[in-house]
């Protein structure tokens, strides 16, 4: 494991990324904006309403939603240029003639692409300490939120990386990665609602009231929708109430974890310069 993290590609990428002042400016600006939003809302709340400690999770929800939006926006883009960027810079072929295997290249790329966004999330954790002051959330919720963010970052990063390996141009790969991420975040929710309503309309005598939403297939689809899972973690209910056979965050983490693994393995396969011809994909 130590060998992996000291592998030359990770060292080089980290060196390149953290050597530029731009990285630190972005980090500073991000914390400034997030902090300003948070402090601004705290200020407004103090002016306009009576605060009851232990009963106020609005700020937590707001901060989590903003940060999740940021993850959806940044994570696919960070990795969508990882391989196509090498191809465009004409350094990929050289890299492939070294002893770095395609799998190692892909793993290094995902680690280095996502290191920055993880840094953003980790450095913003102190902001949550403000929120904890106001109560209304438990440490478990905070940890679950962190897990949820990590799973999403890895999955969106894997989508970006897969598109980057699959497509030649970074521009096309970024748009495709955004499209696929959008489907996961919004599309799964829409499909869930559409299918539920469709089944209910088709068999109104079988599925009275809300029973249709607890059909296994429909429920599993809901568990794949990040906003739904986020709302469950935050204790805010959006959509129908579902009975889960396991914690929904665990189900979500397993599904997105497996999806990430498949995408990473697929990327490593696509990166191989000479592939088996019966399953060749034009690169």
């Amino acid at each position: 494991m130590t060998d992996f993290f000291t592998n030359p590609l990770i060292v080089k990428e980290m060196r390149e990324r953290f050597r530029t002042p731009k990285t630190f400016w972005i980090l500073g600006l991000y914390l400034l904006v997030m902090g300003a939003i948070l402090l601004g809302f705290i200020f407004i709340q103090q002016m306009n309403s009576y605060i009851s400690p232990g009963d106020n999770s609005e700020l937590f929800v707001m901060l989590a939603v903003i940060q999740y939006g940021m993850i959806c926006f940044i994570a696919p883009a960070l990795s969508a240029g990882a391989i196509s960027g090498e191809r465009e810079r004409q350094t990929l072929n050289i890299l492939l003639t070294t002893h770095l295997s395609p799998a190692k290249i892909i793993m290094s790329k995902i680690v280095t692409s996502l290191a920055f966004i993880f840094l953003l999330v980790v450095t913003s954790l102190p902001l949550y300490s403000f929120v904890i002051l106001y109560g209304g959330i438990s440490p478990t919720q905070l940890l679950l939120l962190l897990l949820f963010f990590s799973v999403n970052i890895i999955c969106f990063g894997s989508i970006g990386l897969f598109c980057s390996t699959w497509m030649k141009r970074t521009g096309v790969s970024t748009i495709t990665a955004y499209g696929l991420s959008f489907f996961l975040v919004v599309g799964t929710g829409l499909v869930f609602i559409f299918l539920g309503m469709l089944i209910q309309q088709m068999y109104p005598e079988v599925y009275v009231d809300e029973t249709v939403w607890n059909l296994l297939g429909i429920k599993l689809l809901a568990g794949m929708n990040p906003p739904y899972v986020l709302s469950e973690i935050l204790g805010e209910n959006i959509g129908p109430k579902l009975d889960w056979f396991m914690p929904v965050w665990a189900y979500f983490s397993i599904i997105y974890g497996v999806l990430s693994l498949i995408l990473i393995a697929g990327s490593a396969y696509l990166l191989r310069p000479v592939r088996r011809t019966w399953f060749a994909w034009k690169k």
Partner: protein
Amino acid sequence: MIRTENLTKHYGKLHALNDLNLEIGKGKVFGFIGPNGAGKSTTMMILSTLLGPTSGRAYVAGYDVIKEPKDVRQVLGYMPDFFGVYDNLKATEYLDFYAGAYNIPHSKRSNLIADLLELVNLSNKADAYVDSLSRGMKQRLGLARCLVHSPEVLILDEPASGLDPRARIEMREILKKLRSMGKTIIISSHILPELAELCDDIGVIEKGNLIACGSVDEVSVETRGIAVMQLKTLDKLEETERILAASPLVKRLDNKGSHFRFHFTGNDSDKAGLLMKLVQEGIPVLHFGDSKENLEDVFLAITEGVGN
């Protein structure tokens, strides 16, 4: 050291390479000549394990490029015709990265990098950012990068392309050093005269077919019966031109003002006969011999009509 057997590569309907058979011995420098799209880069990419052939086999140092790509990569250094460099890395860091990528231990790297920079005359640029180097320097750094794991075989695709004359000469000197180190080198170039001086053998490729292969002399004279000759006289240029033009063995006569260049299709005694005739006609001949910088002409002559 390098062998290809009926190496063929098709991209859909395009036949990039047809039944290429090559045999390059250890320590030899092999020059690949051909116009753009002839199949040189395709061959080099197959040998570098970056591309699979449609059919046929290729071996580098006895290793099959398809079945044993890892072993091939260990003995081979590849420099593509166009390659980029990483921003924000210094020359030493750039080489250190590739040394790491070839699993060279940390303890050996600093000496190795210093030696490589010395070899390619970039010692004074060790701490310069790669991005700030000139094209010629980047090209030399690329060459140093190929040598990081001390490969026996070097595959250099147009290493002198886009370089100014000075940078080209510097590159040629480095290649000569590498040749003296016993490296087996395949080099392609469209600056053909450079290959004449550097290469033991050349292969002429056009439309995916190897048209000629052998030493520079064999390819130009013995195999094809063509030599490109140069004649310099003190004066009597018009008379000289008339005599040359009248000879059936002289083709493509080119009056360069100070001298003549022409393709000669005869053998050595025919050459002697032509010289004798010139002298008998009272032409003050200063120089009569093979043109040293004639590969372009040889290339044009032997690829004439191919693919039409």
